[in-house]
């Protein structure tokens, strides 16, 4: 206990003596939280649209006004020349072309159906999907309006149509920011935890200070615990700090129990820091470690479902996610914060991570050698 305490005092002194440490703890996460939450937007506003109107009719103008009225679209070009619109699309100046051909209105009246064309720039497939979804929604509304107004289907003669009004549970306004923010919080806690711990231990190796430590009565587990605890505290602080910022800036809901969230985070950090320690036992320089850590971190984070739900990944990817601690945390933090899940809902993840922590910490301790 005396030794552990002495080591901890030493670690904290060193951590806070590092000039970059305070910016790393305070500034970098805030910048990331604000920047990434807004930047990694899944919601689209100001989709630039080119309208090719070759009909110039009341019907076509009504449709255009529907798009104008939507907050998602911005009509940047109105023309009757289809080729001109295509040129704009290929130059990446517009995201979508709405093409209403000649006789758009006439056919709508006489044949009760008409054609129109949507050309979507699908360089970014996710974006294209969203653009398409928004357009379809507007066209659906237009359709209903046209039927009602022109064909007099209001009142008694009302045609039965099925209209779906979805209710979005746990995020009723589909505020993507809440979803993104919780994901980014996971990334920050993970990065701070894994990188700082691992770098710290490798730095001691590089500086040669382990040579002197190794001839003292300090035991392996004491030394490693003294590396783990400070960064665990810092990472937990980071979580609290992040939640506060989320609450203030983005109105992040905290439906579930904060105690449960912090308890789960502790277990999660044991795993992540354990991985960091393990990586640092197999690397000799900070450079080697950085490459290793980045490989694992980027793979873990991208596979964790931060942007796309992990459940929609191929089955093999989901299998890989069984050993991806970030995926567990990503799921649980959203369950607790947005859904208000209790311990029983997350118990599977909780015990999986407990087991994981035991395995990885045992590996790290066994692999750290005081004698060669």
């Amino acid at each position, binding site marked *: 206990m005396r*030794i552990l305490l*002495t080591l901890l005092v*030493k670690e904290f002194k060193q951590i806070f003596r590092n000039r970059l440490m305070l910016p790393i703890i305070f500034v970098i996460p805030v910048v990331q939280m604000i920047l990434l939450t807004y930047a990694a937007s899944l919601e689209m506003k100001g989709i630039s649209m080119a309208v090719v109107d070759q009909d110039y009719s009341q019907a076509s103008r009504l449709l255009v006004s529907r798009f104008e009225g939507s907050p998602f679209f911005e009509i940047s070009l109105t023309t009757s020349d289809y080729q001109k619109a295509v040129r704009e699309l290929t130059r990446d100046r517009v995201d979508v072309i709405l093409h209403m051909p000649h006789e758009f209105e006439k056919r709508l009246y006489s044949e009760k159906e008409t054609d129109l064309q949507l050309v979507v720039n699908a360089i970014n497939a996710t974006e294209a999907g969203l653009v398409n979804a928004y357009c379809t929604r507007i066209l659906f509304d237009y359709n209903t309006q046209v039927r009602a107004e022109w064909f007099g289907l209001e009142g008694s003669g009302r045609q039965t149509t099925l209209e779906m009004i979805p209710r979005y549970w746990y995020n009723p306004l589909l505020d993507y920011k809440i979803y993104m923010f919780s994901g980014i919080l996971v990334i920050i806690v993970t990065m701070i935890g894994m990188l700082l711990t691992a770098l710290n231990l490798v730095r001691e190796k590089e500086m040669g200070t382990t040579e*002197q430590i190794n*001839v*003292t*009565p*300090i035991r392996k587990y004491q030394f490693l615990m003294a590396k783990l605890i400070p960064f665990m505290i810092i990472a937990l602080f980071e979580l609290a700090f992040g939640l506060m910022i989320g609450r203030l800036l983005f109105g992040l809901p905290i439906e579930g129990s904060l105690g449960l969230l912090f308890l789960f985070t502790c277990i999660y950090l044991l795993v992540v820091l354990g991985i960091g320690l393990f990586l640092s036992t197999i690397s000799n320089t900070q450079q080697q470690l950085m490459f290793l850590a980045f490989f694992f971190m980027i793979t873990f984070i991208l596979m964790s479902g931060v942007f796309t739900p992990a459940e929609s990944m191929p089955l093999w990817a989901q299998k890989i996610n069984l050993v991806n601690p970030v995926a567990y945390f990503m799921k649980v933090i959203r369950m607790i914060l947005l859904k208000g899940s209790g311990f029983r809902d997350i118990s599977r993840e909780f015990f999986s991570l407990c087991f994981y922590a035991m395995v990885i910490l045992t590996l790290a301790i066994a692999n750290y050698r005081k004698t060669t």
Partner: protein
Amino acid sequence: MSLIIDHIDKSFDAVQALSRIDFEVQDGELFGLIGPDGAGKSTLFRIMASLLVPDAGRCIMHGYDVVDDYREVRKIIGYMPGRFSLYMDLSVEENLAFYARVFGTSVEENYDLISDVYEQIAPFKRRLAGKLSGGMKQKLALSCALIHRPRVLILDEPTTGVDAVSRREFWDMLKKIQGQGITIVVSTPYMDEAEMCDRVALIQKGRVLEISDPSIPRDGDDTQLFSLRSNRGVYAYLERVRSMEGCKHAWLFGDQLHVTPKSKDNAEKMKSVMDSWDDPSLQWKPILPSIEDRFMGLMEQESEEHSTNGERI
């Protein structure tokens, strides 16, 4: 017996770093290990410090085996690695207090032991260790290695990279520490430091060539040793002397050359050649070989044997 090194072998991949090292160090002795860079000194010291496991042989420290009882060994030794290994981002006093506490003691408790050393760096006790000069770093490292009152002090090249004055001071401090009853094993690449030890082992290419007591004068060498001095400086003469026919070897020793002729007759001949060099300040006189001369001779012999062996294969 403080330390028993018993037939230690150690190799790294194909390189035989140590072969059949065998010696003993008495209680309270100041034992030196002298040899050039790459001779295997640090490897041997890391084995003694329980940081490295030998391939064969045993190392016993006050009855504890450094491999089996490493935990006990670590309590009774103070080890100072060749490279400065304290925390650069902690201050002088923080480093010292840290190592004291880790060993379950305090700076106050053992202050008498380190006071001679520590007082010299005490004015800088709030300075970060990384900002100290080379000599002060060594003194701090020595203080930290001593703070838990070890029975055996293991110092790996403590004077490498330290200026001549600080080196001298350092050895004086070691003598004082020895006076407190602590056994000291120290390595150095500097031949002239051999004289400061009670006994010295000469190590080269992983083997101990000789263990000797520098205070016992050596004689009975069949070849004689001469010193050559000149007011013009002898460095200019080094190659000239070496190229002379009767010269076995010649080394620069401070401000003089130590020359070993191949035989007594040769010495006479060399003297007469030198007379023709037209340097009235040239002094040529026979001297008693010091331990340095002896080691230089041994090392020369050793490497000659090795190279001829190599040719035969």
